[in-house]
Every structure is written in structure tokens, then in C-alpha cells.
């Protein structure tokens, strides 16, 4: 992977290339005298056509362009340069004898960044040129940084995806084979052996979960998260998840209570993806509440907006104010720890937010006055 890009210091302006296009040789000489003293590298042209020709080989960092020249005028020269080089085009500064606003406006419309009125005042000329060269350099650096960052990000996602894919299969085999041993399919195990096999099973299961979350992030970040929304019963999805997760929660003496109105709560959702959100919020509630807690999951429809909501209330420590903005970000584990030795990748809520965003819904968390925290997902109304 590329090393993280760093912001280079702004390089000195000496050595930067300036093209002066003016049919008046005296102007070229005066400007040349001012600029050469500052260490700029100069080239000149006596007409617009010649300026365009010199530009292609000289590739200047800035162009000084006289408005009135034989052949095509300065405005047209500027337009042609902009048309050929687009955003990469060096900044163009007009030289104008008549300090008339019409000229200035036409020049700026043609794509120039500034103008220099004649007669020249050396300090003003240098100050303006320095400013535009600085801007040019900064925008070049910015473009380079953005390129580097987006390449590094792509490489990261590719690496994440590959690593996760390649880790998945062997982990699934380890877990599966441990299941065979645990069930005594290959002969009975004594208590110590069973304990070891349970450890192998537990460790491979949590590694698989972690790898799956990494894969989710890689998929989402590479823009491959596809949501197929159709009307589904949110209450049924939650009910099924509560049933399954209560089995695990029971080991901590924790219980999830499910509250819902009679009848279905229909919302436009991708059931497989929404199941991930539901599972995550429920297991988080169990994970971060002390053993023996009661977690409440509530599903309903807001009668005013027709939007379906899911709220999960836990009895954990709540979210410290100074950590609130980290909550739904990648790899952001907060100070609170799972209460039963469970694992956390710090990715679960980030994935939830991305899935809910893709559903055009909202997700938020709020500390409750009586203690604990409420996570609330609101989904768009049916069309």
C-alpha cells in the first residue's frame, strides 16, 4: 500500500515558468526585467497564435497576455488555451492599457484570473503574480494529495476484501470441524477435551464474525452495497431476531422483551440487510448491559408520518457525551466494554449507519434519564 501522503511545504517560486505574450517589445522588456530579478524562467511571444504554440512546449505556470494584439486578440487566445487545457491550464493574467471595466469583465469571462494595468508598478506586478502562482501550486498539491488518498483508500479496500475472503473459508472449516468434534460425531470427548473444542469453536466463530464485518465495510466502501427494498414486516424480522439472540443472552441472565402493536409493521426494507442492523442493535444491547439486564425492543409506526421505527433500550452505561460523535464511525470503540467478555470490532454501528443510510432512513442514540441508552432507527414511509 502507498505510504500515507504528507503535505509538502510550499516550494519557492523561483524557477517557475512565465509566458509573456505582447506585441509591444517594450512591455516584454519591462516585465522581463521585473520578473527575471525574482528568479522566474521566462519565454515570450509576439502574438496570440505564437503564445499558443510556445505554450505547448514551454508549459508555463502562468501566462501574461496582452489584450490587443495582431491576429487573434488576448481574449480569444485565453479562450483557446482554456479550451485545450481545461482545468490544467496555467492561470492567465491580462495586460491592459485601458483600465476599463469592460475589458476586465471580458477577460475574466474568457477565463483569466486577474489583470495588470499599464503602466506597470513592479511591486503590484510581483504581488499579483506571486499570489496566482501560489494558488496554482496549492491546487496542484491538493490534486496530488486527493489522487494519493483515493489510491490508498482503494488499495485498503481491495486488501480488506482479499484478506477477509481468504480468511473466511479456513475459519468456516475450523468452526465446522470443531462442531463435529463437540457433538461427539467422531467418538465421545472427556470434559477437558470438550472444553478445548468449545474454545476452538468460540474463537473461530468470533473471528468469522469479525471477518464478515470487515468484508461488509470493504463492500460498502467500494460502493458495492446493493439495497433491494420491498415491503416487509419489520415486526416479524425483529421478532425472529429476538428469539434467536435471547438464547445467547440467556447465558448472561439477560433477556430481550419485544413490544409491538398487533398486526404487521410494514416498511420498505431489504430484509437481509435490515436483519444485520437489528441483530447488531440487539446484540449490542446484550453486550453492553450488565448480566441480568432487560433489553427492550419496540417496533411501531408513527401515525403522523407513516414511518416505521425500531427502538432498542439497554441498561448499559450509556454513551459519554465526549464520545457521541465517534459512535457511528468505523473502528471507533468507545470506553465502555462488553460485560460478558464478548468481542467488538468497532465496525458494527458504522455498518448499521451505512445500511440505514442506504435505506434513506435515520439512526441515532440517546441516553435515557433512568439510565441506559436508546438506539432508534426510523425508516421511510411506504410509497
Amino acid at each position: 500500500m502507498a505510504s500515507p501522503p504528507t503535505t509538502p511545504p510550499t516550494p519557492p517560486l523561483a524557477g517557475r515558468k512565465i509566458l509573456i505574450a505582447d506585441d509591444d517589445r517594450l512591455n516584454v522588456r519591462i516585465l522581463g526585467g521585473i520578473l527575471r530579478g525574482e528568479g522566474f524562467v521566462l519565454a515570450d511571444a509576439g502574438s496570440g497564435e505564437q503564445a499558443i504554440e510556445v505554450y505547448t512546449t514551454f508549459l508555463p505556470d502562468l501566462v501574461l497576455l496582452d489584450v490587443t494584439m495582431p491576429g487573434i486578440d488576448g481574449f480569444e487566445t485565453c479562450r483557446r488555451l482554456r479550451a485545450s487545457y481545461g482545468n490544467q491550464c496555467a492561470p492567465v493574467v491580462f495586460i491592459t492599457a485601458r483600465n476599463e471595466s469592460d475589458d476586465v469583465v471580458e477577460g475574466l469571462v474568457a477565463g483569466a484570473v486577474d489583470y495588470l494595468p499599464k503602466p506597470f508598478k513592479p511591486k503590484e506586478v510581483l504581488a499579483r503574480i506571486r499570489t496566482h502562482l501560489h494558488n496554482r501550486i496549492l491546487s496542484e498539491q491538493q490534486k496530488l494529495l486527493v489522487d494519493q488518498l483515493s489510491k490508498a483508500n482503494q488499495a485498503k479496500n481491495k486488501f480488506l476484501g482479499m484478506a477477509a475472503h481468504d480468511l473466511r473459508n479456513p475459519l468456516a472449516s475450523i468452526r465446522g470441524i470443531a462442531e463435529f468434534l463437540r457433538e461427539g460425531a467422531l467418538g465421545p470427548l472427556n470434559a477437558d477435551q470438550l472444553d478445548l473444542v468449545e474454545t476452538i469453536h468460540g474463537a473461530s466463530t468470533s473471528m468469522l464474525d469479525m471477518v464478515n464485518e470487515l468484508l461488509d465495510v470493504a463492500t460498502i466502501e467500494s460502493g458495492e452495497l446493493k439495497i433491494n427494498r420491498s415491503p416487509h414486516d419489520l415486526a416479524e424480522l425483529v421478532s425472529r431476531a429476538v428469539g434467536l439472540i435471547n438464547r445467547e443472552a440467556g447465558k448472561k441472565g439477560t433477556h430481550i422483551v419485544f413490544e409491538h402493536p398487533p398486526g404487521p409493521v410494514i416498511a420498505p426494507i431489504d430484509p437481509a440487510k435490515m436483519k444485520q442492523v437489528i441483530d447488531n442493535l440487539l446484540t449490542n444491547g446484550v453486550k453492553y448491559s450488565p448480566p441480568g439486564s432487560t433489553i427492550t425492543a419496540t417496533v411501531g409506526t408513527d401515525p403522523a408520518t407513516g414511518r416505521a421505527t425500531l427502538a432498542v433500550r439497554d441498561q448499559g452505561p450509556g454513551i459519554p457525551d465526549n464520545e457521541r460523535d465517534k459512535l457511528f464511525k468505523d473502528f471507533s470503540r468507545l470506553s465502555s466494554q462488553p460485560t460478558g467478555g464478548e468481542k467488538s470490532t468497532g465496525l458494527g454501528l458504522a455498518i448499521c449507519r451505512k445500511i440505514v443510510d442506504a435505506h434513506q432512513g435515520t439512526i441515532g442514540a440517546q441516553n435515557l434519564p433512568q439510565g441506559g441508552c436508546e438506539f432508534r432507527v426510523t425508516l421511510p414511509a411506504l410509497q
Partner: protein
Amino acid sequence: MSFPGKILLVDDEAHIRKFVSLILRQISQPVIVEAGNGEDALKTYQAEKPELVLLDVNMPRMDGMETLRRLKEIDPDCVVVMLTSLANRESVERALELGAANYIRKDTPKDEIAKALTDIFAEPGTDEAPPSTP
């Protein structure tokens, strides 16, 4: 199809072959022959004439798709169930178009794999040759 007596299990990863063999032995008592790559799979198919081929999608060199295509050339009636790791809809769809009978996810818990295989074995009708397209 009814429970197959002989199964060819093709996967480049030995641990997957071991894992899936354990599951197959738990469901029924088939003869299992294994191949670790596509070329071997074609040779073993011709030598052993299994009733079912379980075929990994992702393999180096000759991948599952190419192996499937060649198997169908050798024997248009051969029954192939693809082994996939992530529900990669695109490759599954392509495999079904190429004549695969079904697919199972090998990265799911063993009971799910066992159930998927039992369902496939219990499915009526697939043991007859697929209708030839006019």
C-alpha cells in the same frame, strides 16, 4: 435426486474437502472421491462416474465455471452442485445457466450445509436427465 451412492468432491482447499466429507458421511454413507483441481476433477469423473459432483467455484487455473463447462461436454447429464463461499449471485447465476443443478454455501454452519444438501438430495425429479432444449 435420491441420495447419491458416489460423490465427486472438488475443492482446491483440503480443509474444505475434509469438512464437507464429514457432513456428507453424517447425512448418508456415500463413496466420496476427491479432486483438488479442475483437471483432476475431469479425469476422476471419467474414471469413477459419480452420481453427483460438488464443485468449488473459486479454484486457481481452471476455475469452477470452466470445469463445469467441460464436465457438461463430457457428460451432458452429469449432476453438478456448486460450492460457493459468498453468495456471489453473478457466478451462481452463470453456473446455473451452464447447467449446474444447484449451489450450496460452504462458509455457513455445518447444520445449514447438511440441511441444504439433504434438501437437494430429497428434491424430486433432478435424477432424470434435464429436458433437452429443442
